[in-house]
């Protein structure tokens, strides 16, 4: 009947949902206040900081370009080697682990769990800490750095590779199973074509990250451009520090450009 419109109620959130949301906002506010109290900001140092930064920049300028030829270039090459070898090594270890971690490919929960446990272990330890461990075992130098990069990367690469495997189209695999294909043939003709773009994307992304990470490993003696940075910092040669920082910056940007260009071709 016209004229007897009954209004039906509609609200986006129920009352408990609203209360829950307000409680969440309140908790966020408390967390921010608490954090500020914990970090103990010393007011004098805060006021002083613009002057300090200006001072730092004046010490950095003009840059000592002779340092580039004498130390930075060779350690930069070392850094690239550490990052690249570390990435390749991590791929070699992470791919088999990824096959074990993927639940669709390895329907054994204990093995999935084991592989994921290794991934978490790898990722929960910072590459600097891995480097400290390997420096203790193998002595200072690029070997420790390469292993640190590799072990830090296993978790990242393995987890993402396993996820890519789990997202592979089940139907395509089912067809190969129905044709009587053994598991290894299923992997080569069914899974691999489907995860190949993801694989290259993960590998390049990790290589990009590893260039940045391996740049600081030298601080704990694990080789690379970080050694040059550490030396200059310890001697308070800020004009040399500036050269190293600028070099790292340029290399990271170049790596980014290379990765983007390759990725566009691969995908």
């Amino acid at each position: 009947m016209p004229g007897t419109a009954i209004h039906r109620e509609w609200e986006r959130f129920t009352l408990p949902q609203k209360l829950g949301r307000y409680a969440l906002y309140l908790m966020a506010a408390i967390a921010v206040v608490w954090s500020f109290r914990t970090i103990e900001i010393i007011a004098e140092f805060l006021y002083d900081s613009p002057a300090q930064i200006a001072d730092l920049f004046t010490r950095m300028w003009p840059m000592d370009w002779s340092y580039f030829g004498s130390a930075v270039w060779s350690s930069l090459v070392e850094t690239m080697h550490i990052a690249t070898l570390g990435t390749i090594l991590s791929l070699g270890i992470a791919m088999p682990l990824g096959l074990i971690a993927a639940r669709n490919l390895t329907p054994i929960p204990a093995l999935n769990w084991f592989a994921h446990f290794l991934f978490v272990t790898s990722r929960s330890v910072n590459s600097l800490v891995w480097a400290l461990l390997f420096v203790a075992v193998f002595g200072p130098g690029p070997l420790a750095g390469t292993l640190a990069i590799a072990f830090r990367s296993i978790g990242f690469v393995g987890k993402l590779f396993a996820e890519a495997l789990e997202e592979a189209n089940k139907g395509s695999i089912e067809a190969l199973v129905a044709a009587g294909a053994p598991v290894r043939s299923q992997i080569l003709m069914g899974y691999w074509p489907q995860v190949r773009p993801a694989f290259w994307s993960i590998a390049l992304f990790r290589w990009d990250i590893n260039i940045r990470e391996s740049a600081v490993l030298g601080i704990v003696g694990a080789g690379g451009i970080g050694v040059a940075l550490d030396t200059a910092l310890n001697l308070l040669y800020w004009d040399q520090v500036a050269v190293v920082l600028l070099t790292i910056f340029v290399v990271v940007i170049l790596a980014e450009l290379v990765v983007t260009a390759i990725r566009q071709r691969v995908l």
Partner: protein
Amino acid sequence: MNAVTGTMTGSAQDARSLVIRDLVKEYRRGQPVLRGINLTLPGRGMTAIIGPSGTGKSTLIRCINRLVEPTSGQILFMGQNLAQLRGRQLRAARRRIGMVFQEYNLVERLTVMENLLSGRLGYVPVWRAWLRKFPQKDIDRAFELLDAVGLGQYATQRADALSGGQRQRVGIARAIMQEPDLILADEPTSSLDPKTSVEIMDILSALAGERDIPVIVNIHNVELAKRFAQRIVGMTGGKIVYDGPPDGLTDEDLRTIYGGEDWLNDRADG
């Protein structure tokens, strides 16, 4: 047990005949999807399984090549009980059973030729698959089949560049590549338009017919089933309620299979 089973049994002497006995499948305990299926299929021709959605047609067909594990019962084919095979023996049995899927199930990023050759994966060693060094006779057969399904010039195209109908042709060719003794087709036309559906059924029935391979097809479309199959099996609620020739399928039978009758009247009006 099952009264309808007797109405039409193929000669069980055929080498490629299939006998299913008391097949039960429960995905959850106490809730059977298949409630004791008894079926004897001849070693040639096309059998269509019709029935409402969710009635276990797909489960039945997938129990035959063990994509779904039967809970109990026997599936006798080529002198083996398929329901009990494991490992290597199961793989050997599977490669003699081709399958065509509703969603084609090609490996989209591989070429058409690679998809066809993947039908040979049950036969060729892993290193050959890896290096794509398939035996020349497989490659020759693949080209012949591609020509037969009208995709001769698509061999090097990636499967994801094809239309639905073209993909299903590749799917059928891949099944034939297995040199199967039986082809299972699970709703092969449900994702296709009416015209393409008929073309696909034509190709399936022709390619299988030439090679005398029996085909079991799940199909929604009753008209297509009647047109192409020599035998219709009607299922409802996990049981077979009709088993006989297409001509014998009455409106009364359809009512038993699908329930209700309004939809039949609508069809008569249209």
